[in-house]
């Protein structure tokens, strides 16, 4: 077991956490804005597909990634439009979209390239790995943090940016308010629609970027259902991280670490990979239970505190009342 936990494992964790972190940030935004976005899985898959196809046609991987992101953002906008204009049931819509994208990406793959399950082209370049100046030369930290592609670094920047936006800006305050109580937010004049539109468009773009990481950042190929449930895992990671950017980052690292460990154990031991992959799911459910217990506990203590304050106030009131009466 000693040779299992190595620098390689840490780097694999960071790499495998990225396609979870991006949809998780998207899930966090939509949770915060009070819209359940279950279409993250489909948005990811669409991003993965269009990124690699656009990278092939436009002869530029970075342009391909941008096209993928734009498609996710547009899908988010479409989602918002149907929700706003036709009061669509978002859960049903999301589930239909996920199936639609899963089937139609393969349909398009077969029609365009005559391919069955997996497609790649030698002309497509993988996203280059970047060497961070200064940091790359620091011992221990350098080998750990340097040498990933742009999407990985973008996801880290996004964590910092969302932390600042959510907790340091007016817009972030509004976004959190809408998630807390839409009616209250509306009453004080916050533009709820704008907040939700932002959450869905930004979320779509982030999820699609996560998909692009899989197709042109990690593998340089598209496989049927390449996202393989990561959009859903991302949603769980958002809840696991209590919808705080830093929490979401850590939760994604936990999931990425479990994935990396599964691969590593499969390569070095006799433990069946299906069992190793089984446990992160159990872990996620336990995490969700923990989140629920925390919310329940919070409510319980809030109620307890409120009661204590209330009884203290009524006691004070009664005292004051009786005092006044005796003074008369």
């Amino acid at each position, binding site marked *: 077991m000693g040779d299992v936990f190595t620098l390689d494992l840490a780097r694999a964790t960071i790499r495998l956490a990225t396609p979870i972190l991006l949809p998780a940030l998207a899930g966090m935004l939509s949770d915060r804005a009070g819209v359940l976005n279950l279409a993250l899985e489909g948005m990811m898959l669409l991003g993965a597909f269009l990124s690699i196809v656009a990278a092939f046609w436009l002869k530029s991987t970075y342009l391909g990634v941008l096209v993928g992101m734009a498609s996710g953002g547009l899908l988010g906008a479409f989602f918002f439009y149907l929700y706003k204009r036709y009061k*669509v049931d978002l859960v049903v*819509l999301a*589930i*239909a979209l996920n*199936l639609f994208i899963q089937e139609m990406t393969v349909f398009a793959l077969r029609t365009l390239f005559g391919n069955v399950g997996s497609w790649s082209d030698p002309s497509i370049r993988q996203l280059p790995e970047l060497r961070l100046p200064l940091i790359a030369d620091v011992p221990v930290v350098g080998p750990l943090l340097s040498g990933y592609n742009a999407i990985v670094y973008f996801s880290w920047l996004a964590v910092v940016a969302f932390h600042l936006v959510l907790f340091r800006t007016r817009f972030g305050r509004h976004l959190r308010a809408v998630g807390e109580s839409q009616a209250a937010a509306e009453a004080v004049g916050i533009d709820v629609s704008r907040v939700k539109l932002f959450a869905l468009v930004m979320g779509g773009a982030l999820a699609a970027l996560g998909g692009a990481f899989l197709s042109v950042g990690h593998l340089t190929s598209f496989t049927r259902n390449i996202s393989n449930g990561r959009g859903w895992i991302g949603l769980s990671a958002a809840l696991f991280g209590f919808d705080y950017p830093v929490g979401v980052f850590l939760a994604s690292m936990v999931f990425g670490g479990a994935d990396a460990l599964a691969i590593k154990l499969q390569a070095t031991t006799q433990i069946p990979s299906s069992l190793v992959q*089984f446990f992160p799911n159990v872990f996620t*459910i336990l995490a969700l239970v923990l989140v*629920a217990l925390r919310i329940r506990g919070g409510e319980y203590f809030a109620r307890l505190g409120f009661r204590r304050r209330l009884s203290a106030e009524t006691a004070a009131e009664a005292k004051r009342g009786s005092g006044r009466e005796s003074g008369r």
Partner: protein
Amino acid sequence: MKRSAVWKDRLLTSVLAVVAGLVVSGAYIALTGKDPFKAYFELFKAGFGFESLTRNGLFQTFQLSTSLILTGLAAVVAMKSGIFSIGQEGQYLMGATVAAWLGSSVHLPYVIHPAAVIACSMAAGAIYSFIPGWLKVKLGVNEIITSFLMNNMAVLLMTYIVNFPLRADKGSTAHSAIVDETAQLPVFFQGSKWGAGFILALAAVAIIHIYLKRTAPGYALRISGEALPFASYGGIRSARAVLCGMLISGALAGLAGAIEILGVYRRIMQGFSTGVGFDGLMVAILAKNSPIAVVVVAIFFAGIRLGAQIGLQASMSIPRELGGGIIATIILFVAAESLFLGFIETGRLKWRKALGVEGGRGE
């Protein structure tokens, strides 16, 4: 609003969603440069055609629809109890795994063997469905996410079981041993796999229909699903009613898995999961949670899947994924049904005006 009016509106929106879905999907076919009319003709001929007793798509569609009816029914019961569970896939897999295990490792006489296996599969599905239901009711954990995770777990568990404890031989794809002849379900005609499972599925539909419409526990379940506080004030033990619904829902999906093993595949193999649970969810959505409509929709979707595979892919070289694309497009239109409801409402008003009737419909 009159009950019949609600019923008619539901039927009308579903039919319009199907029509719109087929029209839009025709555009996908046209985009590939093929003739959509010819493609649809081929699709429906392959899916619902009947050439002879031994050579027809219709019986195969009926066979394929068996598990869709049951998983669809499972989704209906879950949704009626107010839990949007997408866990049918996992429950179906658990039922199938248990059936493959008990069907080949326990030896019992005819009739008793399949009955015992089916009972155990249903119990496995029920337990599997109970977990996300309990977490939702007691702790408020989002059931969609937990049931999705449990689907993942079922696939991985099945993969492990079929590769290690139940593996029959060292063949290229891992599979279990064939279930005993005593456990196999009879088929109606030689050459097709359409058989006794279909009868079981229809019986389940009838029982669930009566249960939901005519019995006190069924009423408690529906009311708890529709208006939880109201049910609680009315003295219904709603948590219990909802959990009971989840047990029934899981048992139905487990039954689907057992039938698929005992009646069709006779063994379980790696990659057995075929999205039947998800298709069942789509069936329930288009059927607007009506057990009777589930039968019609399940047969329709099964025919589309089969027609896309044989009619489109084999004879017109249009990828068979279009079948799933058509189903998804139809469901997209169901999600956007208020679009049709608007049309129906204005149409009705115009009609009334033309007839000279005052006001809207009788509420």
